[in-house]
């Protein structure tokens, strides 16, 4: 090994190695003289890194993720609760609406019945009044008719007297005409 090391130092001398280190001619990754130092510093640095990761960083990230997933679960639960509440509110509202509707319907029916009854009463009253007035009017008509009929005789007498006098030349007395008219009206 020592021989090859020397040989390599020889072949690499033209390239040169900085600092003139011990075993500098060996391919650096296989230079065992640096192994102790590398191992020690790896142990120190990686050990510290492992300690920091396991004691500080990873518990912290795991906490963060846990808190977040808890929070999400909590929010979902809250949302579900609110949804249920709103569903209940909707159901209550609909029930009240249905109640109000049926109540309104009942009130409307009652009101319309009442109105109908009132209208009926009024109609009957008006009809009674009207029939009373009709009866009065008929009586009056009958009276007038009677009066008119009684006057018809005298009109006829006058008319007949005038016509007879015109036709016959005034030789018929009034009493004769009246008797003749009464006779004709009787027949």
């Amino acid at each position, binding site marked *: 090994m020592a021989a090859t090391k020397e040989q390599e130092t020889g072949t690499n001398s033209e390239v040169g190695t900085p600092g003139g*280190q011990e075993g500098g001619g060996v391919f650096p990754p296989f230079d065992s003289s640096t192994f102790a*130092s590398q*191992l020690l510093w790896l142990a120190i*640095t*990686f050990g510290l890194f*492992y300690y920091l990761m396991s004691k500080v960083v990873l518990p912290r990230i*795991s906490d*963060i*993720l846990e808190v977040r997933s808890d*929070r999400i679960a909590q929010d979902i639960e809250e949302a579900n609760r609110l949804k249920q509440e709103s569903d209940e509110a909707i159901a209550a509202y609909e029930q009240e609406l249905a109640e109000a509707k049926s109540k309104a319907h009942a009130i409307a029916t009652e009101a319309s019945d009442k109105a109908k009854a009132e209208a009926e009463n009024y109609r009957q009253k008006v009809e009674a009044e009207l029939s009373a007035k009709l009866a009065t009017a008929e009586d009056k008509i009958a009276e007038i008719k009677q009066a008119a009929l009684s006057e018809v005789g005298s009109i006829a007498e006058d008319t007949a007297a005038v016509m007879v006098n015109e036709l016959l030349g005034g030789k018929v007395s009034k009493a004769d005409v009246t008797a003749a008219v009464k006779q004709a009206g009787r027949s």
Partner: protein
Amino acid sequence: MATDPIQQFQIIKLLPLEVAGFDVSFTNSALFMVATVALSSAFLIFSTSGRGLIPGRAQSVSEIAYEFIAGLLRQSAGSEGMKFFPLVFSLFVFILIANLFGMFPYFFTITSHIIITVALAMLVIGTVIIYGFWRNGLGFLKLFVPGGVSPILAAVIVPIEVLSFISRPLSLSVRLFANMLAGHIILKVFAGFVVALSGMGFVGIFASVLPLAFTVALTALEFLVAFLQAYVFAVLTCMYLNDAIHPSH
């Protein structure tokens, strides 16, 4: 010297140190390990410090990384595997950030040194073996004996299974190391061609367009590889941990 593709892997002592005869100097490699850990820790800590119920951009990135690795581990090793979550997460982030740091010019790629990848692979396999025996006792050895196999066939299969188990840390470490090493060497070589060709006059400048295009494409590819290797390391870690938890096939 600038075009030497190996030079970028050179370990440079920044602060010479020696403890009990071992050279444990603070090197450029150590510097980038510190930078990797400092950057990723600082990002993960500060991005989550607000603990926002609604995450901002930075916090989202941290959460996505968390959920990505958590999903990966839970899928392959079940909920029992979640006790290894800090390990898998640390490995993934450490390798990913180290690889990405290596993409900066003049930066050192710590995962391009085999000792680092071997150490990380041994950490995984060590965890698998120790936890496997601790949890299952000798039942962990059922890992090497597929259920419902005749004794004669088992005599053939058991050595194969043992061999495949032994090759795991090897493949885990070499895969990451070789990918990072080869990628950076190729990148450096093609970038070197651009410089070399453009120094050769008029024709050379035209010819250098080709390696330049390659360098651009390779850079994109290397970013993909940087992520992919961290991901593959994490996936395989999850699968091996699953073996430790559920040894019977």
